[in-house]
């Protein structure tokens, strides 16, 4: 009995230590929000994007990335100075600009940096085999850009050894240990949340965010104004056309069909291309997982299908003969996103489309209303190859 009691005490002791240690570790949190604020003398005008703001103070520029999961409260603040870093506020990450080197852990920014003439500042990227940008590929081949592996599991040692001025990485709801470690090693992390924006112009406007780090704000404003102009001009072309076609999107991935939610980037493009979309009133900004039966009932009669993963109708038929039940397949109105790809898996649709929303919108309009854009050739999308299988 006595022995049992000792063991029971031992168990209690284990639990005690366990709980104590956990509380001890989680108890320490950053105390921030000390407000020793002066007023900014100017703001950068942001027309579409909700996820960041840029304010100019004497001697420095403040960039604030806002948190889409928490009512757009600040996610991270950066104080960017050119010459004198003495008068910076205590809050936020202080960085000397323009940056001389950057590691980019997101494909969407290659074209922004190229348009800003800063591609030579990139010293590291992830998933090199999936890159499309020929300029980046050349630099990887010449070893002036290092490939740091899996974007979700970056090679930390190699990243640290590059000693970049900063790292640009996609922020997810969960703060990952990689970013924490980089910050701990004194390398600032620039969090990218462009992918949470739900309109193509809002996403393209993030060029202004990255531009401040290279002191290229004026260039970014000018580039974005042109993007906006081009986009609205294309959109205008379908403005007077009767809205009669409907569209289906996404593809089957191991039994689940992911289609864009009604507040997503793709749904916005469909609206702007004057297309009916089953989920246009839905409030989801991510994707919605559906099964094949739901797809057949909700999208069976859709006229066009964008974002198919197959290359030909034959391949589609081999994957699943049920595809033939879809009107878009019967009418041969199916398009994939593989017009610009590399043999190893690079696809420009995931790279430069963000910075060129006018082109992706033109693609959709060209597919559905070819007469409106007679001179235009597809940039990112491609009709599936036709053959005798169907």
């Amino acid at each position, binding site marked *: 009995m006595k022995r049992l009691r000792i063991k029971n005490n031992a168990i209690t002791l284990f639990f005690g230590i366990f709980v104590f240690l956990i509380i001890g570790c*989680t108890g320490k949190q950053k105390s921030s929000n000390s407000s020793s604020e002066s007023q900014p003398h100017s703001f950068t005008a942001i027309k579409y994007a909700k996820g960041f703001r840029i304010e100019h103070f004497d001697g420095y520029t403040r960039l604030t990335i806002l948190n889409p999961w*928490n009512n757009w409260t600040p996610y991270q603040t950066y104080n960017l100075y050119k010459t004198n870093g003495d008068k910076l506020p205590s809050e936020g990450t202080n960085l000397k600009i323009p940056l001389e080197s950057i590691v980019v852990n997101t494909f969407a920014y290659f074209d922004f940096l190229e348009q800003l003439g800063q591609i030579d500042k990139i010293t590291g990227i992830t998933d090199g085999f999936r890159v499309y940008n020929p300029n980046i590929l050349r630099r990887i081949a010449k070893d002036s850009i290092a490939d740091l592996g899996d974007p979700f599991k970056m090679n930390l040692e190699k990243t640290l050894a590059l000693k970049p001025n900063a790292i640009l990485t996609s922020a997810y709801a969960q703060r990952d240990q990689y970013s924490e470690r980089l910050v701990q090693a004194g390398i600032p992390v620039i969090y990218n949340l462009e992918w949470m924006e739900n309109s193509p112009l809002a996403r393209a406007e993030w060029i202004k965010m990255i531009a401040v780090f290279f002191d290229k704000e004026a260039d970014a404003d000018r580039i974005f104004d042109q993007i906006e102009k081009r986009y609205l001009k294309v959109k205008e072309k379908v403005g007077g056309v009767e809205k009669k076609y409907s569209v289906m999107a996404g593809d089957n991935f191991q039994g689940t069909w992911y289609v864009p939610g009604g507040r997503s980037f793709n749904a916005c493009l469909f609206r702007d291309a004057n297309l009916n979309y089953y989920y246009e009133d839905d409030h989801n900004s991510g994707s919605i997982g559906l099964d094949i039966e739901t797809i057949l009932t909700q999208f069976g009669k859709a006229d066009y299908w964008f974002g198919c993963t197959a290359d030909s109708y034959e391949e589609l038929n081999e994957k699943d003969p049920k595809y033939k039940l879809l009107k878009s397949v019967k009418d041969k109105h199916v398009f994939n996103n593989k017009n610009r790809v590399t043999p190893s898996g690079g696809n420009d649709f995931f790279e430069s489309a963000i910075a060129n929303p006018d082109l992706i919108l033109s693609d959709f309009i060209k597919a559905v209303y070819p007469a409106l854009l007679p001179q235009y050739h597809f940039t990112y999308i491609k009709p599936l190859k036709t053959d005798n299988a169907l």
Partner: protein
Amino acid sequence: MKRNAILFSILVILLLTAFFCDLFVGNAHISIRETWAALWGSSGDTITDEIVRNYRMPKALTSILAGASLSVAGLLMQTLFRNPLAGPDVLGVSAGAGLGVALLTMLNGSFLYPIISTLGSMAQVIAAIAGAALTLLLILFVSSRINDSITILVLGMIFGYVASAAVTILQSFADPDSLKVFVTWTFGSTSNVTWNKMPIMAGIVIIGILSSFFLQKNLNSLLLGEHYASTVGLNIKSIRIVLITITALVTGTITAFAGPIAFVGVVIPHFARALFGTVNHRIVIPATLLSGGILMIICDIISQVPISNRTLPINAVTALFGAPMIIWIVLKRKKL
């Protein structure tokens, strides 16, 4: 006795050598001299110091602790259930931890976000520990009601299956990014543990390992069967609860900090018994401890080798590279 002393000395030397090799090998090109300087003072470069002291060092320590403690936990389970296939995860604790992490990953963008975000990467650890602890409580509840080890073993495995099923359901609802975050966790990683997390992990794990040393006699009695053990005065029920608690704490903690790590816990106890030719826990516990640490640290070194710029998940390396080593030993000795 002399043979054992020699074998133990070899294991200790191997462990220390492997530990130092792990500190000197990595993806950043740092010379042996620079690494040495960074270890004992400063290499003159802050990033090199950072890599050696705050990245490689805790990673090597985590490998040793994970390998050693999972192996000992596996040994405890094999002895308790008298089943050669038992391992640290038979109680469903790893699966429970996985369920915790899966829930966290999927709930992240939800109303819980403000709480989760203040915790940073500790959120994942806490979620895993909560999942593991819940499974442990279930198992302890069952153990207090049922007086048959095999039934507890079967129920533990059932808990594991239920947790895995729940994880699969969550995965089918997840968006591709969350899915990738979760899958990356299941790869296992010894580099997750930073110095500020180390005291918690090391604290719990070392307590677990040390307490198993005090149970040698009880474990030896268990080898003769529960019936015999109870006739020599062993309180089977209480010893069972103690063994389950130690195993679950150790496995839950390692899984929480380093992700699920398979293989080591099942195989190393067999290896240790075969190497020393005995089942006496006075020998087998330290032998298992050392061999587990050595295997894990070798696997950690292998997992650093980049294959087309990616490093291998430690969870796969343990089985892929561990299995041939063990099979070779078995073939040489003709038995385990």
